């Protein structure tokens, strides 16, 4: 019973839902503010994402006629629960490296695709042509970025010789972080592009291109269901940089104040990179995105893996 309580606490409050949602929503505010400053605007106040969520949870939810009600309403929850679990596993592995189990890295990789899959499910269940178009694009995007993503993670697995997150962090604590090597840098660049696509940011936002297909996969969602999608997107914006920090930058040393400061610095650097890529690029068509990922990016990831095998 006590163990169950701790698990619930971890999942819903501290490293899990509440904590990552708050930090994630603040990160989306940073994103909107920096975007506004880059466009010579003033930008929204800091509580803007919280106001959005508060409003969305008070509004009516409309289920489209002819759609599948159950799948339509369950899809956002599936995505949110999966991404919350990812956040919990990552933070627990960083704070207590011993609690990990064999292969938790792969559990994280699998669960990271679930938010995209849930968006596809919900969009397909909504019986809207724009949503269907967005779902098909999102599906192609998943097919495009998963291969280079897995290759880059394999590079790290080869370098550290472990598929346990805690051991990867431990290896980096002993032998120096994986970013400080040629293959590590290449894998980092590849994962940065993949993160951009996973977040659905420009240049890979064809799935919800608001200028051409309304809001793509989220077209039919209103009220609380849209709010839950906003939550999962915000948590994703927090979790993906944490995964990059864990894999490439030696994880988070939460037990010392300096470690927390270092984590904040690393997180802000990655967030700034993501926002800068988002704001300085045009949108790629879905075929261009597919060619980009299967061509240069996969070649780069394979090169990184080969370099890791040579020992660079």
């Amino acid at each position, binding site marked *: 019973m006590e163990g169950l309580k701790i698990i619930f606490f971890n999942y819903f409050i501290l490293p899990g839902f509440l904590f990552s949602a708050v930090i994630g929503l603040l990160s989306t505010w940073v994103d909107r503010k920096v975007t506004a400053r880059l466009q010579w605007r003033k930008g*929204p106040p800091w509580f803007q994402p919280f106001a*959005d969520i*508060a409003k969305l*949870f*008070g*509004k*009516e939810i409309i289920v489209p006629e002819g759609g599948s009600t159950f799948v339509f309403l369950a899809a956002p929850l599936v995505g949110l629960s999966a991404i919350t679990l990812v956040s919990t596993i990552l933070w627990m592995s960083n704070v207590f490296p011993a609690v990990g189990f064999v292969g938790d890295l792969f559990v994280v990789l699998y669960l990271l695709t679930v938010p995209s899959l849930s968006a596809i499910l919900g969009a397909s269940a909504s019986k809207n042509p724009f949503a269907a178009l967005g779902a098909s694009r999102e599906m192609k995007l998943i097919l495009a970025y998963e291969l280079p993503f897995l290759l880059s993670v394999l590079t790290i697995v080869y370098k550290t010789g472990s598929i346990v997150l805690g051991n990867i962090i431990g290896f980096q604590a002993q032998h120096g972080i994986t970013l400080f090597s040629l293959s590590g840098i290449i894998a980092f660049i590849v994962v940065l592009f993949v993160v951009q696509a996973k977040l659905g940011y420009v240049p890979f936002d064809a799935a919800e291109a608001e200028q051409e297909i309304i809001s793509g996969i989220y077209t*039919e*969602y*209103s009220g609380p269901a849209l709010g839950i999608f906003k939550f999962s997107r915000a948590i994703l914006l927090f979790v993906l940089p944490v995964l990059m920090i864990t894999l490439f930058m030696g994880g988070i040393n939460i037990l010392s104040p300096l470690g927390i400061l270092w984590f904040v610095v690393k997180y802000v650097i990655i967030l700034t990179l993501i926002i800068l890529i988002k704001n300085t690029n045009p949108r790629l068509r879905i075929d261009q995105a597919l060619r980009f990922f299967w061509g240069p990016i996969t070649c780069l990831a394979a090169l990184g893996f080969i370099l890791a095998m040579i020992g660079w």
Partner: protein
Amino acid sequence: MFNLFKWGFKKSPWVYHLAASACNNCDIELLDALTPKHDIERFGMVLVGSPRHADIIIVSGIVNRQSIERFKRTYDQVPKPNLVVAIGACACSANMFRDSYNFVKPMDEIVPVDVYVPGCPPKPEAIIAGIVKALEKL
């Protein structure tokens, strides 16, 4: 009592633009209100493309025989509660189309209109002020 939903609505009204049958003049002025110079994101306003995400419907133009069905249907697609702001002389009083064969009936007999912003076309500042007035009605 502090009402979280009301606070959220006031701080994040998402705007949906519904051109009933406008001459494009009000629409251009509305687009002007979205430019960096006026920057309505300061107030949390975002232009959304889907009526499902809308909180405030901004209507421009008269409602004519062609658009009345679409107008009603689009209004029904918006999740409640929502607000309606009519911008431009046509939306307020049908202007010079009052006696036209194509004019059906005044807008407030079709949907409840919260705020009227007169002008042909209204300035972007007037549109923003109208939306803020509409929010005060909550």
